[in-house]
Every structure is written in structure tokens, then in C-alpha cells.
């Protein structure tokens, strides 16, 4: 990710932090928690891909190469699987840059995968402990995301 994009993302994040952290500045733009997580995830996957000499893809941008697809999303069989009550068996990789980003943000990727998959698809019908895990791990992810974006802004 180039420095210009990085600064833009970090500036958006800091605008949110100014209010939530009790800072004196008024936010120019608010980043929702969901977008904060997405911004941090992109930061991490960009770093991961560029370390491998690959160009990170952008929404609506030129088609990425197969090498980028595999480096980002993983290869072979999905290592994590979960069967939903409707019968769909959802899989998710533990290899690849996206998986590494999830571990960095949420800590326990297996536990996050189960919680987020169930909550996304079952909503309030998801088991209570999985809904609790979702809240816990998402809060953890937000803390990590804010720290990452802030550190990135300060170092760029």
C-alpha cells in the first residue's frame, strides 16, 4: 500500500479516535467499526502481498494474477470447515495473506471463523456462546485494528 493511501486511511481512523478517545479535535470523517476492521485488514494483506513481490488488488481495479489470488486467499483445501443447519459446509483457509491478517486482528482464527460464520448466517439463532465469542473477538479485532492504523500513520 503506498504512503498516500496509508495516510488517507490512517487519517480517517484518527478522526474517529479523536471522539472515542476524548481528544479535542472534531471528526472530519467517521470510520465505522466495520470499516476500521476492513482498513486494518487491507493494510495487513497489502504488506503480506508486497513482501512477496505481488501487487495488491483493488476493488474495481485490473484483474489480479493467479499468483495474487492464491497468495491472498490460500491454496488447496480449506483447512477450517463448519456445517450450517441448512447443510452448507462453509470453508475458510488458514494459509494465505487474508488468513494471516485475521489471526493478527482476531487472535484465534478458528474460533473467529466459527463465531462469525454462525452469527452472519444465523443471527440471533446462533448459539449464545458463539454470539458472545463474536462480540469478544470483534472487540479484540477493533483494538488491534486501531493500534495498527495509528502506528502505520505515525511511521509513514
Amino acid at each position, binding site marked *: 500500500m503506498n504512503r498516500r493511501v496509508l495516510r488517507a*486511511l490512517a487519517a*480517517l481512523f484518527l478522526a474517529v479516535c479523536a471522539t472515542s478517545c476524548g481528544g479535542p479535535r472534531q471528526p472530519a470523517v467517521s*470510520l465505522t467499526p*466495520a*470499516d*476500521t476492521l*476492513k*482498513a486494518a*485488514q*487491507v493494510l495487513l*494483506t497489502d504488506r503480506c502481498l508486497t513482501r512477496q513481490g505481488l501487487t495488491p*488488488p*483493488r*476493488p*474495481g*481495479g485490473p*484483474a*489480479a494474477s*493467479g499468483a*495474487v*489470488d*492464491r497468495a*491472498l*486467499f*490460500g*491454496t*488447496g*483445501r*480449506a*483447512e477450517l*470447515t*463448519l*456445517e*450450517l*443447519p*441448512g*447443510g*452448507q*459446509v*462453509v*470453508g*475458510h*483457509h488458514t494459509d*494465505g495473506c*487474508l*488468513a494471516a491478517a*485475521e489471526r493478527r486482528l482476531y487472535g484465534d482464527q478458528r474460533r473467529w471463523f*466459527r463465531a*462469525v*460464520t*454462525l*452469527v*452472519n*448466517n*444465523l443471527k440471533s*439463532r*446462533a*448459539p449464545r456462546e*458463539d454470539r458472545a465469542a463474536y462480540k469478544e473477538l470483534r472487540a479484540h479485532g477493533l483494538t488491534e485494528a486501531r493500534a495498527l492504523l495509528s502506528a502505520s500513520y505515525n511511521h509513514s
Partner: protein
Amino acid sequence: MKQYVSLLVAAVLATGTGLATASPASAAECPSGNFCAWTDANFGGQRMNASGDDEWWESWIADEDSSWANHGISGPGVKDHVKVYESAIQFPSTGGAMTICLRPGDEVGYNATANDRGDAHVWAMGC
């Protein structure tokens, strides 16, 4: 009734999670930025790529879908989740029940009990 449904869901998940259900034999080859649906299980057969919404799948894939993958690209303000619906989204229909919601990186190699239930999909900020 709600309590019963929750108990039933918990029971199904308790038996389903962590089981060595057969993992897909092959990788989901799906270009970055796309949602893909295949006519066969385990990402085989014909493949539909979609970087945008498609509220009325073509007949060769509508209700013929057996595996899916979301390789959407994330970013702040970017719609990177995919919702698959069992019916086409054509007024007055709003697509019927949502079959599944996939976040980036999610893949569904097969459906043990309810195959071929996709007729439309939309991209969304979340599920």
C-alpha cells in the same frame, strides 16, 4: 418455539462442528474481486464469475449451483460480503430466503442437504 429452535440449532452444530466432514478435494479457483458459483460440488463443472450483483442468474446456473466462493476484495466502504438468495430478485419478489452469506475468503464446497438453492446474489457491506 424460539427456545426449541435455538436448542435444535445448538444440537445440529454440536454434531456438525469439528467433524471430519470431507473437505473439498480441490481449491476454489476464483479470480480476486469476484463471487463464483459452480454447477458441481467441490468447485467443479461450469463456473459463474460475478464482480457485481446479479439478481437473476442465468438458467444454466440458477438452481444448479453446487459450490460457491467469495474472493471479494475488502476495504473501507467496500461491499465485500455476498448474500445468495433462493429466488430471483425481481419485483415483487425480494429474493425469498437468504440461502447463505459469505465473507471474503469463505468457500462452500458442497451442501449436504440443500443443494442448488441459488437464483440471485448481491454484494453487501456485511451480513
